[in-house]
């Protein structure tokens, strides 16, 4: 479904992503982990078309992508960001936020779709005519997820979707993402620095360091601690330490 090969991103003299290649099958959730500055979010943003200065090949659903993306691309691929406060328009109501993708893509039946999207992310009907500042952090992230899903994409790019949330809210959002993924057969890429979150949602993951993928492993290997690269071993040890086990 998603394929990247020899992806390179440079910001001036900063070589942020160096020859990254991976494939994500349809319906799969692929994790990208690493410390800040490892290039994991940059990879995601290059796929989403938010960064135009990249070289290499990216394809989604069998179509090679260029620098500029057309409308059909954004119908297929949507993204959820870390901070729901920064990614929602502060002066638009939830209703307006959710109707925008529908207007852009000329999707009919907006009324019913918005109502269904709110229901899917378990937001109360009263939330529809509120502004982002009137919602809690968890509710705002639900709105961001509803906005991503309202026009029926097939690929969801998730950039640290729960790291700004309380652990209790994180559990709710992770369950919600798992449910939506199963119900809609979504293909996802999840960027996170939290190995436990990645293990929870992803079947396979890549570990990044200094702009390169140093290791690709599956969930079972991650949980069992069967890592080959020393950086992965460090991350796993640290995660166990912070988990208190």
């Amino acid at each position, binding site marked *: 479904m998603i394929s990247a090969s020899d992806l390179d991103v440079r910001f001036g003299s900063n070589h942020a992503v160096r020859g990254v290649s991976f494939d994500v099958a349809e319906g799969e959730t692929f994790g990208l982990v690493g*410390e*800040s500055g490892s290039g994991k979010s940059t990879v995601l943003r290059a796929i989403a078309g938010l960064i135009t200065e990249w070289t290499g090949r990216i394809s989604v659903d069998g179509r090679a992508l260029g620098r500029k993306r057309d409308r059909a691309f954004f119908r297929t691929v949507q993204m959820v960001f870390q901070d729901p406060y920064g990614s929602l328009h502060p002066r638009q109501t939830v209703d307006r936020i959710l109707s925008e993708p529908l207007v852009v893509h000329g999707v009919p039946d907006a009324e019913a779709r918005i109502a269904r999207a709110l229901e899917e992310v378990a937001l109360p009907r009263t939330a529809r005519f509120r502004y982002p500042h009137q919602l809690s*952090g968890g509710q705002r992230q639900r709105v961001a997820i509803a906005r991503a899903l309202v026009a029926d994409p097939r690929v969801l790019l998730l950039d640290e979707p729960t790291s700004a949330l*309380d*652990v*209790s*809210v*994180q*559990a*709710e959002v*992770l*369950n919600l993402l*798992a449910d939506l993924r199963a119900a809609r057969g979504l293909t996802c890429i999840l960027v996170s*620095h*939290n*190995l*436990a*979150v990645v*293990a*929870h949602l992803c079947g396979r993951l890549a570990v990044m360091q200094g702009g390169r993928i140093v290791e690709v492993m599956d*969930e079972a290997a*991650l*949980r069992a601690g069967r890592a080959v690269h020393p950086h992965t071993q*460090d*991350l*796993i040890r*640290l*995660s*166990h*330490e*912070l*988990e*208190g*086990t």
Partner: protein
Amino acid sequence: MTRTVLPGEPLVAVRNLHVDFPSATGVTQAVRGVSFAIGREKLGIVGESGSGKSVTGRALMRLLPGSARVRADALRFGTTDILHASEAEMRALRGGRIGLILQDPKYSLNPVMTAGAQIAEALRAHTKLGRREAREAALNLLESVKIRDPRRVHDAYPHELSGGMGQRVMIAMMLAPNPELLIADEPTSALDASVQAEILSLIEEQVDSRGMALMLISHDLPLVSRFCDRVAVMYAGQVMEELPAADLHRATHGYTRGLLECLPSLEERRERLPTLRRDPSWLAPRA
């Protein structure tokens, strides 16, 4: 206020602290009857956003907005009665005897002053050091917070430093006047997991070697329990449970258990995460 601290008496005593925020739509009770004491030890205060944990920390430094109404049976630091202390007395406490480390060094450091100048300023505000001595001391402090190249960081502006480095500068600045209590309010939430552990170990090491007390405020229960002696769990402005950090896995309160159980784990696979079911009885005023 002039009473001396008896030996064995805690450094900080908080009894029945209430903080209210009146607004146009009614009164928000942020803290409702919190009591605790801190000796020369590390106390963790854990809770979700809105639980009142940060407000409790700020009340200790009298750093709440003017609209806040604070009352308590006792709110004492050393021999100072914080509720009735003069502004001059509070200035001696803030940054002098009590250091405060906040979440994001990007916002807590002055963007137009070099790191070294800020540390020197903190030193000169609370001690009688001259300019040159303050510079020397600032360099030593930068070295003590394990910055490899103290001279470069000394002359760097905050935007030239990484998050972890900025937090080290913040810690150096707070350690400068040799405080008795360090309040760290989510000191690592803006940082990477690996840097998180380094910064907390650094705080732990400095607190231990200087014999300071630490109040670590965080939403991360496992993390806090690793670095503290005792943990107080707050919910809706009240302390639900206070227990030794080592006994966290034996916590009895439903809220503490719920917080622990809803974490995804690297150890075991779970199809669904248990979500926290909030029991209305947790909101009832506690004795």
